[in-house]
C-alpha cells in the first residue's frame, strides 16, 4: 500500500486559502499602519518644529526691536559721558570731590534723561554713585564682567550696553554705558531707568506674551523656558527663580550654547519631549551680551500624540485579527464547497474498489469531476470485460485441467494448491490428496503407492529450489504404481503469481509410448542384427564371386591355352591335316569365342567394383579417337561417320571411353552390308542434363526388345551371324548407371537404331 499524506484535500485547500488571505490582510494592515504611524509622527514633528521656529523667530524679532529702541539712548549717554568725564578731570581725578548730583542735574537739563552715575575703580568696586543702594558693590565677584570692565578701563572708547531687563512683563528696564576716565583709573558707568513711552511699546514686545501666545497656539506645549548663558532662567517661574538647574539640564544647555545647535530629549514614561534650541541674540559685542544669548526650552506634552499612535496600532491590530478570522471562514467555506463533491466521488470509488462494480458514480455539478467519473466508468467497464475474459480463460483452463489425462499438481512452496482428477487417481492411495495438503505429508504415502519413495517424492519436493523456479524442467522416471511398472514424464514449470512463484508439476503417464519406443528399439536392434548378418552373407557372396571371377580368369583360361598349344602341336606334328582343316578351324574359333566371353564377363563384373575417378571429358576428342581406332580394324561395309559438336561430359575417362567404344562398335557391327551406312552423333541440353544421341542406319531390331538389349547375354541375333558375346551393351548400361545416368534404345528393323543416353 502506498503511504498517503494525512492532509485531506479539504484541509489543504482551507489552509492554503486561509494562509493566502491572512498574508494579504496582514500585509495590507501593516502597510496601512506604518503609513499612518509615519504620518502621525511626521505631523507631530512638524508641529514641534513649527512651534520652535515660531518661538525662535519671534524672539529674534523682539530682540531686534529692542535693539532699535536701545540705540536711541546712545547719543545722549555719550554726551552725558563727556560731562562726567570733564567733571572728573576738573576734580583732578578725585571722585570724592565730585558733585555727582550736580552733574546729574546738569545732564538731565542737557539731555532730558535722569541718569545714575557710577565710578568703578580698578578693583571693580563702585566708589562713588548717585544710586546709593549700589554704593560699594564689588564687580570682581562677576569675573567675566570684571574682565570686560578692565578692558574698557585700559582703552579710551565709549561703550554703550544694551537695555537690560527681565523677561517678565513689567520688570524695570535699565540701560548702561561705560567709558574710562582720562587717567584710566576709573570706569565711568552711566545708567538710565528707561521710563519713556517707548517702554510701553517695548512692553508690547514682551517675551512673556510670546510664550503665552505660542503655548496657546500649540496646546501640546507644556511649558516654555528661556535660559541665558549664565543658566539664569529668565521667564518667571518659581523653580527657575532661585537659579537652581539640575546638572543634566545645565550640561545640556551648556552643550547647546557651545554648539549653537538644538537637542531633543524624549521621556516616554512621562510622555514629554523636551527640546533645547539656541536663539542667537548677540548681534554686537555689548558688555552684557553674554546674558543676551538665549536657549529656548520647550517641553511638549506627547501624551496626545502617543495616544494617537497607540490608537492607530490598536485599530490596525483589530483590523488584522478580524480580517484573518474572516479569511479562515472564507477558506473553510470555499474548501467545503470544493471538497464535498470530491469526497462523495471518492466514497463511491471506494465502494467500486471494494468490488461493487455495478455501482455508478452520481453526476456532479463540476465538469472536472464528471470527467473523473467518466474515466472511472470506462475503467470499470474495462475491468469488467477483463474479468469476463479471465473467467472464460479460467473456465477453459479449468476444463482442460480437469479433463487432462496428465496428472497436474500446483505446488506453492510445500503446499498443494490445486490438483486435477488425473493426479488424484494417479497419486491417491489410502489418503486422498486434495488442495491444501502439505506435499511432505503425502510424500510417504505417494512413495508407497508408486513404490519409489526416494524417487518421485524427492524430485517433486526438491527440484523446484527457488533459484530454479523460473526454469521449466523435465524428468523421466520409471517406477511401480499400484504394482505395475509405469513410465512417467514429469515436467516442472514455474507459475508466476502475485504471492510468488509456484510450481506446476505435470505427470504424464508415457508407459504406452515408452513401451512402443522400447519395442521399436528392440525391433531396430533385431533388424540391425539381420542387416549385419545379411551384409556378412553378402560380403561372403561377393568374396565368393571374386574368387569365382578369379578362377574364371585364371583357371578357365589355362585349359583353353593348353588346348591351343596342343592343337598347335598336332598341326605341327601330324603328317597330313588337310582332311581336318575345317575341324581345326572350328576348334580355333570356339576357343577364341570362349576366351572373349571370359574377358567380357570379367570386365563386366569389374565394372561395378572399380571406383570412379571423375574428370571433365572432351567428348569430341574422345569420339574421334574411338572412330580412328575402329576404322583401322574395319573390314566390312563402308561406313560414314557424322559427328556434330559434342558437349563436354563429367565422368571416369576410361569407363566412358569403354562405353562409347562399345556403342559405336556395336553400331558398326550391326551395319547393313547391302547399303551405305551412316553413324551420326550429337548432343543437346534437355531438362538440365546433357543428352547424347548415337544414330545408325544399320539393320535395327524389333523395338519390342528395346528394353532388354542391355541385359547380360541377351542377344537378338544368332551366334555366329554377328560377332560378340552379348556383354557389350550390358557393360555400357552399367557404366552409365554408375555415373547416375540413363540409357535407352529405339529401333526399327531394317532402318536403324537410335541410342540416347545421359550421364545425369
Amino acid at each position, binding site marked *: 500500500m502506498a503511504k498517503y499524506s494525512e492532509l485531506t484535500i479539504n484541509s489543504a485547500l482551507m489552509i492554503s486559502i486561509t494562509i493566502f488571505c491572512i498574508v494579504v490582510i496582514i500585509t495590507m494592515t501593516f502597510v496601512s499602519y506604518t503609513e499612518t504611524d509615519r504620518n502621525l509622527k511626521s505631523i507631530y514633528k512638524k508641529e514641534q518644529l513649527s512651534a520652535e521656529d515660531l518661538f525662535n523667530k519671534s524672539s529674534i524679532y523682539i530682540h531686534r526691536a529692542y535693539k532699535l529702541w536701545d540705540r536711541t539712548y546712545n547719543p545722549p549717554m555719550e554726551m552725558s559721558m563727556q560731562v562726567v568725564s570733564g567733571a572728573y578731570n576738573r576734580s583732578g581725578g578725585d571722585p570724592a570731590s565730585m558733585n555727582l548730583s550736580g552733574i546729574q542735574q546738569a545732564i538731565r537739563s542737557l539731555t532730558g534723561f535722569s541718569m545714575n552715575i557710577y565710578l568703578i575703580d580698578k578693583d571693580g568696586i563702585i566708589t562713588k554713585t548717585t544710586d546709593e543702594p549700589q554704593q560699594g558693590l564689588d564687580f570682581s565677584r562677576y569675573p567675566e564682567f570684571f574682565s570686560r570692565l578692565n578692558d574698557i578701563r585700559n582703552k579710551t572708547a565709549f561703550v554703550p550696553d544694551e537695555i537690560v531687563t527681565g523677561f517678565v512683563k513689567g520688570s524695570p528696564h535699565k540701560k548702561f554705558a561705560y567709558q574710562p576716565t582720562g587717567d584710566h583709573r576709573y570706569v565711568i558707568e552711566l545708567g538710565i531707568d528707561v521710563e519713556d513711552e517707548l517702554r510701553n511699546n517695548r512692553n508690547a514686545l514682551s517675551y512673556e506674551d510670546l510664550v503665552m501666545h505660542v503655548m496657546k497656539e500649540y496646546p501640546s506645549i507644556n511649558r516654555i523656558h528661556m535660559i541665558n548663558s549664565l543658566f539664569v532662567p529668565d521667564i518667571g517661574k518659581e523653580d527657575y527663580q532661585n537659579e537652581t538647574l539640575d546638572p543634566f539640564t545645565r550640561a545640556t544647555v551648556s552643550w547647546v550654547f557651545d554648539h549653537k545647535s538644538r537637542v531633543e530629549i524624549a521621556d516616554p514614561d512621562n510622555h514629554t519631549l523636551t527640546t533645547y534650541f539656541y536663539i542667537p541674540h548677540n548681534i554686537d559685542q555689548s558688555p552684557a551680551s553674554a546674558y543676551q544669548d538665549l536657549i529656548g526650552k520647550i517641553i511638549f506634552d506627547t501624551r496626545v500624540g502617543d495616544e494617537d499612535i497607540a490608537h492607530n496600532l490598536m485599530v490596525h491590530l483589530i483590523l488584522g485579527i478580524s480580517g484573518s478570522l474572516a479569511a479562515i471562514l472564507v477558506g473553510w467555506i470555499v474548501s467545503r464547497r470544493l471538497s464535498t463533491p470530491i469526497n462523495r466521488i471518492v466514497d463511491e470509488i471506494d465502494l467500486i474498489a471494494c468490488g461493487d462494480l455495478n455501482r455508478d458514480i452520481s453526476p456532479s455539478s463540476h465538469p472536472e469531476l464528471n470527467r473523473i467519473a467518466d474515466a472511472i466508468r470506462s475503467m470499470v467497464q474495462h475491468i469488467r470485460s477483463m474479468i469476463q475474459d479471465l473467467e472464460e480463460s479460467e473456465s477453459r483452463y479449468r476444463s482442460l485441467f480437469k479433463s487432462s489425462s496428465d496428472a497436474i499438481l500446483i505446488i506453492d512452496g510445500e503446499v498443494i494448491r490445486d490438483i486435477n482428477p488425473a493426479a488424484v487417481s494417479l497419486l491417491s492411495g489410502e489418503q486422498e490428496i486434495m488442495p491444501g495438503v502439505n506435499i511432505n505429508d503425502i510424500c510417504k504415502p505417494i512413495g508407497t503407492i508408486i513404490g519409489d519413495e526416494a524417487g518421485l517424492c524427492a524430485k517433486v519436493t526438491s527440484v523446484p529450489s527457488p533459484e530454479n523456479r523460473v526454469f521449466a524442467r523435465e524428468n523421466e522416471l520409471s517406477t511401480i504404481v499400484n504394482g505395475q511398472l509405469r513410465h512417467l514424464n514429469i515436467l516442472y514449470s514455474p507459475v508466476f503469481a502475485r504471492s510468488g512463484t509456484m510450481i506446476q508439476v505435470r505427470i504424464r503417464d508415457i508407459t504406452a509410448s515408452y513401451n512402443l519406443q522400447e519395442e521399436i528399439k528392440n525391433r531396430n536392434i533385431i533388424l540391425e542384427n539381420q542387416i549385419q548378418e545379411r551384409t556378412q552373407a553378402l560380403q561372403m557372396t561377393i568374396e565368393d564371386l571374386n574368387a569365382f571371377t578369379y578362377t574364371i580368369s*585364371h583357371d578357365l*583360361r589355362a585349359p583353353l*591355352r593348353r588346348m591351343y*598349344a596342343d592343337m598347335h602341336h598336332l598341326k605341327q606334328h601330324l603328317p597330313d591335316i588337310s582332311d581336318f582343316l575345317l575341324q581345326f578351324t572350328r576348334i580355333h574359333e570356339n576357343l577364341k569365342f570362349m576366351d572373349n566371353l571370359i574377358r567380357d564377363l*570379367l570386365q563386366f563384373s569389374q565394372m561395378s567394383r572399380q571406383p570412379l575417378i571423375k574428370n571433365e571429358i572432351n567428348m569430341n576428342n574422345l569420339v574421334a579417337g574411338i572412330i580412328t581406332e575402329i576404322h583401322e580394324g574395319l573390314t566390312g561395309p563402308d561406313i560414314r561417320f557424322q559427328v556434330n559438336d559434342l558437349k563436354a561430359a563429367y565422368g571416369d575417362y576410361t569407363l566412358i571411353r569403354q562405353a562409347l567404344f562399345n556403342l559405336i562398335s556395336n553400331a558398326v557391327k550391326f551395319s547393313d552390308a547391302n547399303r551405305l551406312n551412316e553413324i551420326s552423333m550429337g548432343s543437346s541440353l534437355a531438362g538440365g542434363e546433357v543428352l547424347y544421341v548415337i544414330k545408325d542406319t544399320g539393320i535395327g531390331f524389333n523395338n519390342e526388345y528395346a528394353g532388354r538389349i542391355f541385359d547380360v547375354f541377351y542377344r537378338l541375333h544368332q551366334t555366329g551371324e554377328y560377332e560378340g558375346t552379348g556383354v557389350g551393351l550390358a557393360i555400357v548400361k552399367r557404366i552409365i548407371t554408375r555415373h547416375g545416368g540413363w540409357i535407352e534404345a529405339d529401333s526399327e528393323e531394317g532402318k536403324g537404331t537410335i541410342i540416347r543416353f545421359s550421364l545425369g
Partner: protein
Amino acid sequence: MNQSLELVLIEDDPHDIEIFLNVVEWIGMNDKVRVFSDGRAALDYLQKRETKQEGKNPLPGVIFLDLKMPLMNGNEVLQILRSDPHTARIPVVILTSSSLDDDIRQSYAFGSNSYVVKPLEFEKFADTIRDIVNYWRNINVRPVT
C-alpha cells in the same frame, strides 16, 4: 645385355611350363631357360648366386613370374626380389592368365616391369615371349652393376 644371360621362369603348372618351353624351343633359345616350380626355390637360387658367386655367374636377363602359385604367390616373390638391393634391378615380367585389374595394379605397385596376360593362341604366345626377350636382351639398356 649379354646374349648368354639366362631366362628364369617361375611357374607351378607343369603344362604351362611345357608350353613355355615349347615356345622357347619354337623361338630357338631353350638352352638358356632355368625353371623353378615354386618361388622359394627360385629365391634361394637367385640370392645364393648373388652372394656366393658374385661376378662369375651374372644375374638372369629376365624373370618370367606366374602370379598364382602355391606356398608363395608371384607378388610375394616380387616383393622379396625388389626389397633385396642386388636383385632389385632384374627385369621381372608377370606372365599370368589373370586380367583382373587388382592383380595388374598390385603387380606394378610391387615393382614389376611388365604385365603380360598369356595369349590364348600358341603363335601369339610365342611372338609375345620372343618380343619380350628381344626387348630386354637387345633393346633395353641397363646400367652396369
